[in-house]
């Protein structure tokens, strides 16, 4: 193939019918308050782990809701569970229980 000097981006289309929504379903059942999330990102702004790494609880949430669970397992392990995110959340999302539930879901689904 001729090298044009640029590559083609991987298809990032999300097909909800094909995505693995098991974690999302479990987590929604365990912690329904995540439906209140407006995606403001305050949680990630204050995150103690986020000061050291790329860890971003808002992104984790988005990934789960999209059913993109590949990177989740590694990512969620970085949380130090301090609870700052929960305190700054303007919507009262119960983030610590969310983290526990995500972990539980991964444990159960494997």
């Amino acid at each position, binding site marked *: 193939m001729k090298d044009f000097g640029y590559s083609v981006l991987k298809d990032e289309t999300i097909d909800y019918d094909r995505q693995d929504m098991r974690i999302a379903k479990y987590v929604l059942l365990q912690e329904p308050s995540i439906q209140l999330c407006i995606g403001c990102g305050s949680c990630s702004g204050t995150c103690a782990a986020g000061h050291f790494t790329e860890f971003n609880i808002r992104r984790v949430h988005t990934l789960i809701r999209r059913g993109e669970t590949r990177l989740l397992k590694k990512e969620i392990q*970085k949380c*130090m569970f301090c609870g700052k995110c929960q305190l700054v959340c303007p919507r009262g*999302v*119960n983030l610590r229980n969310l983290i526990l539930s995500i972990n539980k879901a991964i444990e159960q689904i494997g």
Partner: protein
Amino acid sequence: MINFNLFVLPFSLGLIYLLIAIGKSWYLWIKALPAHDKVKLKAGIRHPQLMLGAIREVFMEGLIHRKMWLRNPLMGYMHTSFALGWFLLIVLGNIESRFYSGTHLNAPYYPIFLKFFIHDKLVIFFEVYTVPGIFRFLMDFILLFVLSGLFLAIIKRQKSKWFGMKRAAEYQLTDQISLICLWMIFPMRLLAESYTAGYYGSGGGFMTQPLGGFLVSITPLPSDFIAYTMWWGYSLALGIFFITLPYSRYMHIPTEILLIFFRHCAIQPRKWHSAFSDVEVHACSRCGVCIDVCQLNDAGITDSQAVYFIRGVRDQYVPDEISRKCLVCGRCQEVCPVGIRTDSLRLIKRRELFSSQPSDYSFLPTASLSRGESPRQGGVAYFAGCMSHLTPSIIRAMKGIMEKAGINYVQIDENRSICCGRPLMIAGKDRQANDLITANKELIRQTKAELLVTSCPICYRVFREEYTLPIRVQHHTQFILDLVKSGRIPLQAHFKKVAYHDPCDLGRGSRIYSAPREVLAKVADLVPVINECSDALCCGGSLGILNVSQQQRDEMTKISLSTLMKEQPEILVTACPLCKKTFSKHAEIEVKDIAELVYKAIPG
């Protein structure tokens, strides 16, 4: 055999079963103790002073129920009459029976059913000049004492408020069967003894004799037959009570004795479910004292209180969400008359649930102080804590105080903070928390400081309990008090009316009650609040609870706030960034940390 009748069988079989069941439980629990605890137990048993202390506690708590008296006299009386009364009936009954049998070896049922076998001729009211007469008086008197307790117990079912309890524990079927049998025992004894005394026209005391005469006169059936039936009923009530006891809440009676001995031998709860936890959960009497003090009631949660949780542990079935649903504020532990460490039991369950969750903290810096954080030989290492980063005014005040006092300090978590680990531990993730502890310990070591000061009671507690640091640790209230006492910070009092809120981890968790109050007395006019010191309420922001909604938290916060506003203070003072943040949302007055108040009071 003269002194035998078929009706003694239910009692005797029940007693044998009970003794075997208790013996087996005790044996298994002691056998399951780890080796070093067994050593402690053996050493403790040989130590007469320790044993005397334990026996004294068994008497005071197991029979008199001292803590119940302190809580509510009516409740205390009810418990004393049952426990001490029954105990005295057994002891005196045994002594009494010796006079008649003339031997020291009586069958166990003989003193219990003495009046069936013996019909004394002497019948004189208050015949205190004969030995049998004294006993007859005493036995009747004590029976009356127990019956008065029973009367109260029946009233308590309907009017628990009179006994200082807004809510009573709900009981399972086994508990109810046991309870009915227990309630039946003493009225049956009264009826059996009365009918017998009435039938023979002798042998009763000041209560049973006249009552017997009256009952016989109004009963159309042959009274010897009724009396015999009553003796059967009495024996059956005892027998069934004994057989159900090991499976009901009444197992607490024998287990509490063992627990008291364990405690006196300095056997401690462990991180995982152990023989000690088993003893603790069986020692729970389900009295329900823990229910009223639990603030989850304010949030409309009524299935997660310590009594129900412990019952779940005992029945080996605790739903996930019950384990998560606890503020871990320690209020129930504070009031438990048995002294069960309810918090540590809850954390054990959480460890079982969550300790296997993976974690990866390899991103943590292999311990190096960041820019501007140079070591302070012999100075102070200041750890603000995650929560203080959300209330920067506390950090500003602390730095200001230390600068004014000329303290040589370094803040460990100036730019980036590693969590202290307690939030993980409180969710049962001790193993995961260890990585954070190691990282923080290395940072603390690098500061070369002699004293670690933190603004957060949550951090303070874990530093003290889990870090095993070679240097002293202080919460900033203690640190400030030391500075004030040594005259390093001059204070100009403003004497505004302030109310002080005891944070859970500083108060009940670390027993620091006086330091903040002493500091406040120097800078303000401290007014009393409704729930103080060990009785203080949680602010509602607790990291201990994992599954309540924000609305439920808000309910708890509002009620907690209302107890602090009794004397209309101008400022609400606390010593915890989490409490400050939680209260600020709902308080109509200013909420300040003690450090902020002190900083403002430094002149110039």
